[in-house]
């Protein structure tokens, strides 16, 4: 089952077994003098024994290299284990779907459930939905349209993993006696809250962070990328490698939590791109009028009404080609 590398091929398995036994005896700490003597005899008896023992020592020292940060090493190994479980879960789901059809096997189902429970809760919103949630520690989060987030709290941290969409987070001092850090992961990096209210939005290739209260520390995921602390009133965009220079946080950025989209002199094309996040299907813009400026507050729960308001405010028509295909054109163009 184990593939023997060149290094161990030359040593008989029984010798490796003996070396492993001796390791377990000596590592126990309580070794009698005569036992130590027997071990030395074993070492001296055969060159192969010596070789096997050298390997035992190399392995033992190698594993112990992370000893100066044992908790970090343990949690890193734990994280790798969780990843393996997730992959196994996906495989199980795919296999079950492929082989079982309608009939779930009960045992399977329990196994899957347990695995999901171990991975933490997931929360989702569909297109056009938004939701407010209270987490176990008193933190409140708001999910904007088309958002997926995992909540993974454990003994060492309070972690949110944002897969897509947008969140507003209002952290609460931890209920545990030893306060755990509050961290949000996007695909590009980790954001650690330092007593805060902030929004995180996942774009295709980057993350946008806006801080309204307190501070948030960003650690992009690329190796060696520099961290940065973002203060209240600032917003930045970051990739796994770089963090943009902070800009002023626009006041209208949180309007979605009230079900509104606020445009302050926004180009029409950009406005429609924002509005289309809340609406199924295509919402396009005729390039000829893409630069028209939009001002006002629009309801995102009723995108039809938002489009009607747009028609009232600007010389444009929302042309419904199909129920899920709308193009906004100059009003004169629509026959």
């Amino acid at each position, binding site marked *: 089952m184990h593939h023997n590398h060149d290094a161990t091929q030359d040593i008989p398995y029984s010798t490796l077994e003996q070396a492993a036994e001796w390791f*377990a005896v000596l590592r*126990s700490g309580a070794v009698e003098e005569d036992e130590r003597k027997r071990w030395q005899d074993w070492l001296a008896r055969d060159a192969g024994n010596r070789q096997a023992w050298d390997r*035992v020592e190399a392995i033992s020292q190698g594993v112990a290299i992370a000893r*100066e940060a044992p908790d*970090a*090493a343990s949690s890193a190994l734990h994280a790798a*284990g969780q990843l393996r479980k997730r992959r196994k879960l996906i495989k199980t789901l795919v296999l079950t779907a492929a082989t079982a059809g309608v009939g779930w096997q009960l045992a399977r189902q329990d196994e899957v459930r347990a695995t999901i429970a171990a991975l933490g809760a997931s929360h989702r919103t569909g297109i056009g939905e938004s939701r407010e949630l209270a987490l176990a520690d008193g933190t409140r989060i708001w999910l904007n349209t088309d958002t997926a987030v995992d909540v993974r709290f454990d003994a060492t941290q309070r972690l949110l993993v944002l897969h897509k969409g947008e969140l507003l987070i209002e952290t609460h001092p931890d209920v545990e006696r030893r306060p755990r850090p509050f961290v949000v992961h996007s695909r590009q990096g980790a954001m650690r809250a330092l007593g805060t209210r902030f929004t995180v939005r996942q774009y295709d290739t980057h993350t946008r962070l806006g801080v309204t209260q307190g501070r948030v520390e960003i650690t992009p995921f690329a190796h060696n990328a520099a961290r940065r602390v973002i203060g209240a009133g600032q917003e930045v965009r970051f990739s796994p490698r770089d963090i943009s220079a902070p800009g002023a946080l626009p006041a209208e950025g949180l309007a979605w939590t009230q079900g509104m989209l606020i445009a302050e002199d926004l180009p029409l094309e950009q406005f429609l791109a924002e509005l289309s996040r809340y609406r199924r299907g295509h919402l396009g813009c005729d390039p000829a009028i893409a630069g028209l400026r939009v001002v006002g507050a629009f309801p995102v729960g009723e995108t039809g009404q938002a489009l009607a308001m747009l028609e009232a405010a600007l010389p444009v028509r929302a042309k419904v080609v199909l129920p899920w295909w709308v193009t906004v054109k100059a009003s004169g163009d629509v026959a």
Partner: protein
Amino acid sequence: MAGSDSIAQPQLLHTLYADHQGWLQGWLRKKLGCGFTAEDLTQDTFVRLMVRPRELDARQDPRAHLTTIAKGLVIDHWRRAEIERAWARAMMERPEAAQPSAEHQAIIVETLMEVDRILASLAAKPREAFLLAHLHDLTYSDIGVRLGVSERMVKKYMAQAMLHCLSAGATFRAALP
């Protein structure tokens, strides 16, 4: 076999690269959702091919073989990201002065990759015992209490875990100077 060695010739590798680099990078980009990483892993795939040319013989479809190598590299990539992320998170908790140097940290992460790879196929309790002894310096009796087993059992686990590492050909980095 002389035939299966032919791939080692630089000319052939060159042709392989020219023919397959394009789709492989596209395939990796789709899997990873990141152009930079896809580029890196494409290079790594061909490096792997150069290092172990014998694995590819003339009868095999190069596309299938390259995909197999690349799949393994993708899994390693996610595993490394997960380990690095968890490690970085834990380091954040420490004052700057208590953090090992960047080089040392890189070596530790590398070692953890290898430890994870080897110990993944070991049963949970022996693995746990082995790590508690090495990372946390716990005695057998402490480990026994943690795992709810006797000291004798812990000793058995230790031997079992070490034998597992030995027979899997573990090559952890030696301790730092």
